[in-house]
């Protein structure tokens, strides 16, 4: 089974395109969570935790030759 991970819902992708005149910088967006204090730090930890678990999940769900 091939699973596409789509992070941005379609309507929101249009909204993102509206913002695109300036490249905000992926890292510059994430680091703001840390700048925001303890609550923001929790968001950053959650983001990285999801990335980590997502990687394992994708590996577990990776297609085999029999699929």
């Amino acid at each position, binding site marked *: 089974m091939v699973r596409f991970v789509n992070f941005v819902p379609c309507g929101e992708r249009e909204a993102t395109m509206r913002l695109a005149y300036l490249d905000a910088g992926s890292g510059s*967006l994430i680091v703001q969570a840390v700048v925001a204090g303890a609550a923001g730090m929790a*968001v950053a930890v959650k983001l990285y935790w999801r990335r980590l678990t997502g990687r394992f999940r994708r590996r577990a769900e990776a297609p085999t030759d029999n699929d």
Partner: protein
Amino acid sequence: MVRVEPASFRDPSGRVFYRDGQVFRGLSPVAAQDWRALAATKFFANAVKAGKITATEEAEKTDEWDVVLRHERIPFVSYPFEWSFAMLRDAALLHLDLLQAALAEGLTSKDGSAYNLQWRGASPVFIDVGSFEPARPGEPWAGYRQFCQTMLYPLMLQAHLGLDFQPWLRASVDGVEPARMRKLFGGARRFKAGVLKHVHLHDAVQSRNARSSTGEVRAELRDAGFSAELVKATVRAIDKLVRGLDWQPPASHWTAYQQTCTYSDADRAAKVEFVEAVLSKKSSLTLDLGANDGTYSRLAAKHSDYVVAVESDAAVVDKLYRDLHNEGERRVLPIVMDLADPSPGIGWRGRERASFEQRADADTVLALAVIHHLAIGRNVPLPEIVDWLAALGRRVVVEFVEPADPMAQRLLANKPEGLFPDYRRDVFEKLLGERFTVEHRAELPSGTRTLYCGVRRAG
């Protein structure tokens, strides 16, 4: 005739242009929606009333744009690499202040550039009305990186390392990148206020996420619970950091500076009297080249709509700015610039931000006690200096310091003897007379300094 502002191409949803001496901004349908959202807020009306955002009204629509705005004109456009430390800090604080007010009403700014700000004398004013747009829930501030590169990092360079930031900003229109800052803040310097998070962590996270698109990261942050409250907390934290950054020049700087002020009381009084007499004709824009502590800029302000005080010593400009700002002065703008190396055009094709000479179209130019610094100190030929003065303004008030003067002697002592055979009063008077009609002339009591007031000849 319509002239498009060369610096307004970066955001394609609008364009700034000039027509009949007025400033307009054309808005696309999307930008027009953002404008209506902004115009409906209380903070916008209050900020315009307080002079924090440039006065803006809707003008007659054109075929090309959905909405056309008319902006109040800024008397003299200056750039962040011409500002002093306290100027850049006050500009940064105004940007953050407006962003916080916008966030409170559901708006944000889509960029964070120091070029969003200009000056009315010693008061900063936000000019990029097109920056504001409705905030999207769960999205961090898109202008953060630009704010760091053009405002926070330059302030850190000066406050933490004592490095003048102006050359860094002049070298790149996009400011100082996190990776470059990180190299400057190694060792124990990384523990200075704000450096670990805004420089080291910022650069590390940026390089590890270089392959992720900002769209993906925005969605990830939203899913992880990033909220509007966190955006406010981020901006509050940056505001607190910027307020805590300060810079004062070392005491030795002022001792050295005092040695450049060698006037006797009689010379000083005679000079003030001459300048005051010739400035009695009203000017719209006066440039005071080599303004020092601003004595003559203040004097010129009595007879001018606006005065730009140009001085190469960033510490002197910083002190002058702080004084003018505390006095609430809105007609004298101090800027940092080396007269022998004036601001060039920078950015795209060298035209995005205009050179000093392109921006300087003055009624009156004061060049008091500067000619010898250019001619002897920097080897600029006298004919070049006189041509340059004629290019800057219609009327000039200029001081010639003879080689026998103690200040000229001090400069000559650093050069081989006989290097400047043409640096003489008679040569200067001849050159001045070719480009200007000299209307007034006065010798100061010391006998080694002469003042002239000339009007530029036609052609």
